[in-house]
């Protein structure tokens, strides 16, 4: 029964990697700056989900610590980018 689980985890891994590839495509070709900010935020989120899938696969706590850190840093950086794009300064 572990083989079903392993196959599904490999499938999810490939799906998340393809999602990161699509986000990178949008990050490169995005016509405006807020498109790029949105693509970067989705890329952070996909990286967090990749760490979660790896954590399920290898049963390691380190991946979950990494996922918490990635979620925190992604939130702060996206808010900073959005505020900079809106007003031209981060802290007003």
């Amino acid at each position, binding site marked *: 029964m572990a083989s079903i689980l392993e196959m599904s985890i490999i499938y999810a891994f490939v799906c998340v990697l393809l999602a990161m590839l699509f986000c990178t495509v949008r990050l490169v070709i995005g016509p405006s700056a807020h498109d790029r900010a949105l693509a970067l935020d989705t890329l952070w989120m996909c990286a967090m989900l990749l760490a979660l899938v790896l954590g*399920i696969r290898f049963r390691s706590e380190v991946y979950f610590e990494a996922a918490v850190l990635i979620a925190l840093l992604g939130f702060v950086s996206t808010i900073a980018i*959005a505020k900079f794009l809106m007003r031209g300064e981060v802290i007003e």
Partner: protein
Amino acid sequence: MNAVENIPVWAAVPVAVLVILGGSIILIGALGLMRLPSFYQRIHGPAITVTLGAGCILMASILYFSVLQSRVVVHELIITAFVFMTAPVVSMMIMRAAVYRDLRAGKKDTGVSSGGVYRSETRE
């Protein structure tokens, strides 16, 4: 590379279904981010990734490690609470930035309007 731990069938099947569902939803959200034509349609793509896709993966993780009983599930709950609190905030900030930028640049073809708040727009 250690193998996936053997867990009973009644737990392995829901975990596998949740992981497959989560992966597919994440892929669909990112595909929407890449393929949709305008920014205001594109912002709806990642919303499904960060709510339903992340929710499925986190539920699978909680179920797997609870059945395995190797440790207490605290990280997943922290991540769930954090993601579900910050996703609307991030979405709203990027949306406001996009609306301000499009209004400032005068891009009428994107369909953005201030609802007649500014005098320069009501004059037209």
